[in-house]
């Protein structure tokens, strides 16, 4: 019955579509709008069904953190300008600098995530004296979406926090022993805070990319221990000779098996990789697959929704593996780009 009315609605909708403006049709009949695109094997934003959004990673966006990364999903037009045309460098949104060029900061929806890692010193718990700790928090501030209001945090935020923590810990990305400073006395507590600046679907995927990128960028400060047993940072060459350093070697975290994820929305027989919020609002079934850098499965999640065949799950896994390869390339490129920046 429900399916019938739905079909009827779709039929009237497609009849009306000719007379109605596309934007109005899109808002009034989002499902019919999507299905019409799918019939042509294309998506409302012009992507193929199995195509993930264009991804950019900018490392070191926040000065006040030890490691940070800004990532964007979506067709943001990047056009490099000669630096002389701008008297200052907006380090933070290099994409926004492009908007001064005739081809502007486009109106295409794009997902933006900002992740930062900040280190603090703690006394390790007695049961694991040689380990540090990671505290993950995913924030959805009211700026990111019309659905979030101040004082009422989004329901999904704690779910994503937990899922991120699980993935980062279970995949062995971070060796907590690397965060140890002095056995039993002091170790690092890494606060990983991820802010969603513009919510546009596949939040978990974007959050995980930004988390991994921020840890890649993380540089652990040189520290020494004072007479009072407190740890303090040592900067400059003079400091290095004057104080006895605690962590001469452990300056970068060696990340093991970097995990990347891909969310697929399932609609009838179609598998839509990396859905936008518009697509998410009409589709009910998702599969999120996390794979690590050697293509091992870290997690698969399909919460509720319509029943799915094993074939579809396998398809999602292979899409996730493909996406993982692309993301590693992008991450490597961004690390190189940052190193070039630093040497200049």
């Amino acid at each position, binding site marked *: 019955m429900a399916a019938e009315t739905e079909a009827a609605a779709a039929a009237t909708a497609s009849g009306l579509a000719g007379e109605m403006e596309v934007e109005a049709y899109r808002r009034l009949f989002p499902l019919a709008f999507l299905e019409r695109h799918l019939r042509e094997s294309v998506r409302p934003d012009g992507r193929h069904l199995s195509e993930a959004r264009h991804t950019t990673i900018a490392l070191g966006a926040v000065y006040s953190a030890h490691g940070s990364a800004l990532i964007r999903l979506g067709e943001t037009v990047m056009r490099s300008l000669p630096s002389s045309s701008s008297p200052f460098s907006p380090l933070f949104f290099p994409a926004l600098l492009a908007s001064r060029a005739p081809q502007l900061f486009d109106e295409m*929806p794009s997902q*933006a995530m900002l992740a*930062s890692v*900040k280190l603090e010193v*703690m006394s390790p718990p007695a049961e694991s004296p040689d380990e540090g700790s990671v505290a993950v928090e995913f924030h959805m501030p009211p700026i990111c979406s019309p659905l979030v209001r101040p004082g009422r945090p989004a329901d999904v935020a704690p779910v994503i926090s937990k899922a991120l923590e699980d993935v980062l810990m279970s995949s062995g990305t971070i060796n907590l022993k690397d965060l140890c400073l002095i056995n039993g006395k002091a170790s690092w507590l890494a606060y990983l*805070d991820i802010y969603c600046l513009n919510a546009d679907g596949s939040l978990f995927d974007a959050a995980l990319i930004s988390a991994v990128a921020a840890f890649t960028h993380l540089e652990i400060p040189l520290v020494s221990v004072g007479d009072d047993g407190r740890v303090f940072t040592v900067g400059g060459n003079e400091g290095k000779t004057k104080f006895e350093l605690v962590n001469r070697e452990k300056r970068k975290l060696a990340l093991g098996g970097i995990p990347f994820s891909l969310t697929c929305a399932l609609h009838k027989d179609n598998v839509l990789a990396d859905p936008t919020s518009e697509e998410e609002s009409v589709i009910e079934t998702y599969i999120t697959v996390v794979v690590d850098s050697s293509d091992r499965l870290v997690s698969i999640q399909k919460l509720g929704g319509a029943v799915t065949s094993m074939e579809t799950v396998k398809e999602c896994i292979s899409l996730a593996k493909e996406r993982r390869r692309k993301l590693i390339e992008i991450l490597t490129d961004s690390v190189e780009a940052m190193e070039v920046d630093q040497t200049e």
Partner: protein
Amino acid sequence: MSVQAATGTYSPAAAAAGDKRREKREELRRHLAEDADWPRADGRSFHDCRPAFMQTGPTTAASGSAYAEFGKTKVIVSVFGPRESKKAMMYSDVGRLNCNVSYTTFATPVRGQGADNKEYSSMLHKALEGAVMLHTFPKTTVDVFALVLESGGSDLPIIISCASLALADAGIMMYDLVTSVSVSCFRKNIIIDPTSDEEAWQDGSLVVAFMPARKEITQLTLTGEWSDSRITNAVELCMDACSKLSDILRDRLKDTATLTSE
């Protein structure tokens, strides 16, 4: 977790930074004793603002948005609405303006310190209220949400300017763009657009929110020790800088307009 953060953990920079801070304060004291110009940490002169980068449209999910970067200070403002007021609100002939300012946990050198600036939400509201034509959207609410990504000094004035750009981007009717600039006072010297370090040692501060085309001040906050003549000077300095900032905002809006019409 927050309990643990309060008792068990600390930022290691604090210990070593203590010495550096003392040095800086000594240096400043020396400069003040000599009563001379001293070089500012970022190489500006006393009456130079930091280079301003402002842009509309970082948050596509909002009706209007703007991003501002002044030195290390980075702010995003999103505007939603006009949309339905909260159910609990009484009927109102004029629209409502709802403002909220929040900080990221990593905005400040010490984690989570940004939450201290609770008064900014209401100050932002007061600064903008006079400029927005509230009667053009009766019964509804316009939400102005600001997120400080990184705090590097003069946060409130930058939030105000950025918010008015975001309101304009959202097509909310205003009498004029509101721009805001702050100055710090050090004994006999006035410096404009102070960084966080400079704000930490200032004797007094003045924040002016101004509508340059109408030559009207929407908000003026003065704290600390000031003499009459210097207040006049400082206000004029702020108004002048606000006018220049307003030109930048207008240019940005024109850029976007020409682009959409093309």
